[in-house]
């Protein structure tokens, strides 16, 4: 057998018990009652969820006290929508619903024999230049669409935010996706990078370009420092200790007022310069030197391209490292630590380098964050940040670079888009603010992911080396729980 044949995975046991080869079409008529029943169940469940979450709205009364306003119509509309959606899913043959009683999930997974048809490879091959091209052209496109630099500020800022998270996601991907070390405290290194730049530049007047590598080195040092005590830990225990580490860093930043300024943070951090030339309106400024008209947006566009370059460096380094012995050792470590040792891999060094390199990129991103904001405080480095970055890595499909980028866009841009869904007011009434439902929708998206893509958006792992021909197998064919 020189190619992977279409592989049939055996039907689930209950399907086999009830006569495995009954086709989905054959039982559709019988299933109508079942579908209705599960639709009712779904609506009831929605009702149960909606009553505590959606029903009551608080508003300030005339006397300053709070008034509770019940919103039964909203609750009922939601239940109705869920009922109809479940019914539609059941009738359209998609029997993979959460509440499906007869599990007639189609159990045949076909693996194409033709490497060119492997969607994973094609997707990655097409997506990478597409993404890079789109990212490079983004400010120009926004400029043309919005008809001015000042008008496109919001979109370029959003682009910077997304790219920051893409970079953080790629950095954490080294630790979590490649080396398989579940790190819940990644924001600590982001904070170390940000505070390194802020303190070095405000205290010693060092420029951003000197501080950037220093911040990376310091963050990597802290990565090693975290790595030592957790060398023996894996999985849940590792997650708890790294979570604690993230909190310790934040609490130290809050309480060490003499150095870090405490909760008030550090302000007036020097802005980024064009390799020494400041973005100011004066004689020595960027615009004057290059014969341009001064525009404060020049700095923002420069920041955009700066973070784009930093993110691409992270990506290139990761891709390169994956092909080197150390990268392969990371992946092998994720798969089986004992086997790694018996193959002569020093697991201590392997883990520490994963922590250090992941932390280094977090540090770069942190110092970028500090120079962009001009102000940092411990508030920016709470656990929610770690959780968001980890969610980006997990959503993207651990270990997949393109997947992480897609997930970062979805996670950062998605909530922003919700701000612009004003038309929903027409459906839910004047007082409806789609912004309030961001987390709800976020949760729904997470549940949907778990049902349909439990291994992340892009779960195909590209082999780092190929011999004669390329071929890959979807992650869904390998047992769960590995990576």
């Amino acid at each position, binding site marked *: *057998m*020189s190619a*992977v044949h279409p592989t049939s995975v055996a039907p689930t046991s209950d399907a086999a018990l009830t006569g495995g080869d009954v086709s989905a079409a054959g039982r559709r008529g019988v299933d109508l009652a079942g579908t209705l029943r599960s639709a009712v169940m779904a609506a009831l469940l929605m009702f149960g969820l909606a009553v505590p979450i959606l029903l009551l709205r608080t508003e300030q009364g005339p006397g300053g006290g709070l008034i509770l306003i019940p919103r039964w119509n909203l609750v009922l509309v939601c239940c109705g929508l869920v009922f109809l959606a479940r019914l539609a899913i059941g009738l359209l043959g998609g029997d993979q619903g959460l509440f499906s009683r007869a599990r007639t999930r189609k159990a045949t997974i076909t693996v194409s024999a033709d490497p060119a048809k492997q969607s994973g490879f094609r997707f990655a091959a097409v997506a990478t230049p597409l993404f890079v091209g789109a990212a490079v052209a983004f400010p120009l496109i926004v400029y043309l669409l919005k008809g001015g630099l000042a008008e496109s500020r919001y979109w370029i800022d959003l682009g910077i935010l997304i790219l920051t998270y893409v970079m953080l996601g790629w950095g954490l991907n080294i630790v979590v996706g490649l080396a398989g070390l579940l790190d819940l405290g990644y924001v600590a290194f982001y904070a170390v990078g940000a505070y390194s730049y802020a303190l070095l530049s405000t205290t010693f007047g060092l420029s951003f370009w000197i501080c950037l590598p220093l911040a990376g080195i310091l963050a990597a040092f802290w990565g090693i420092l975290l790595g030592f005590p957790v060398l023996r830990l894996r999985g849940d225990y590792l997650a708890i200790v790294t979570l604690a580490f993230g909190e310790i860093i934040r609490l130290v930043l809050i309480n060490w007022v003499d150095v870090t300024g405490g909760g008030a943070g550090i302000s007036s951090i020097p802005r980024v310069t064009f390799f020494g030339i400041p973005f100011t309106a004066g004689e020595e400024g960027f615009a004057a030197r290059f014969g341009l008209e001064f525009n404060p947006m020049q700095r923002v566009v420069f920041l955009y391209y700066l973070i784009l370059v930093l993110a691409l460096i992270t990506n290139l380094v990761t891709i390169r490292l994956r092909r080197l*012995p150390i990268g*392969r*050792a990371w*992946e*092998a470590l*994720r*798969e*089986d630590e*004992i*086997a*790694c*040792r*018996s*193959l*002569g*891999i*020093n*697991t201590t060094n392997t883990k520490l380098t994963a922590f250090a390199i992941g932390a280094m990129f977090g540090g770069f991103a942190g110092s970028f964050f500090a120079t962009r904001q001009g102000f940092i405080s411990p508030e920016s480095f709470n656990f929610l940040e770690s959780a968001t970055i980890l969610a980006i890595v997990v959503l993207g499909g651990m270990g997949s670079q393109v997947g992480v980028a897609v997930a970062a866009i979805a996670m950062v841009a998605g909530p922003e888009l919700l701000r612009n869904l004003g038309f929903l007011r027409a459906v839910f009434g004047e007082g409806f603010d789609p912004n309030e439902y961001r987390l709800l929708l976020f949760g729904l998206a997470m549940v949907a992911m778990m049902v349909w893509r439990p291994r992340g958006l892009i779960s195909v*792992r590209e*082999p*780092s*080396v*190929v*011999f004669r*021909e*390329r*071929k*890959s*197998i979807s*992650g869904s*064919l*390998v*047992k769960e729980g*590995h*990576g």
Partner: protein
Amino acid sequence: MSVAGINVLVEETRAAEKARTAPLLSVRGVETYYGNIIALKGVDLDVHEGEIATLIGANGAGKSTLMMTICGNPRARRGRIVFDGRDITNLSTHEIARLRIAQSPEGRRIFPRMTVYENLQMGASLDNFAHFNDDLERMLAIFPRLKERLHQRGGTMSGGEQQMLAIARALMARPRLLLLDEPSLGLAPLIVKQIFAVIRELNERDGMTVFLVEQNAYHALKLAHRGYVMVTGTITMTGTGKELLANPQVQAAYLEGGRH
């Protein structure tokens, strides 16, 4: 030739003599504990260069513990393990592996999400990829199945194929000593035969030194030059494979009364 040169020559000759007489691996009085529970109660065992030595015993006798102790995880609390004249008792696992002791651990432990090719590459990293292409061709010749599966993920293969991969991965490191922990575990009799045939071939053709831990006493003893029987953490019997096969006690305990 200078005096120093002659001295080197003399030393080399001595070392070669020593290698001929001293065993490649010698385990002396090794005691291993899991917490306070003693698992190995002073084990003595030798594996000579170019031979197949096998350790048989019932479940829980300590066979795999001995194999893991040789690899340094867990460490022996007492006793000495010497490999090629070097005390390896207190070395860490990866350092022991770098002395070219390759292990195919119990339960195979291949890398499931990596392809067969990448798995083999991981094995060759110890050898610094010096002979990677030659070794790869050799492995694919020994295990033609792996050639068919070269770009498949390890985890998607059958148990027998995974076992072949585990052995091939260990061999990619060009080991001086190959440790095999229950290669027949959970495999169909036909596959077991194939795997034992491969072990014999490796030994006869390439002179590979093999230390084999097995439950399948009949196959293992038939193959082995030297056999050890382990009962609750101590070696109770030693002899050539043939001697042990003919031994009535061994027959009664491990060979269903010789009805094989």
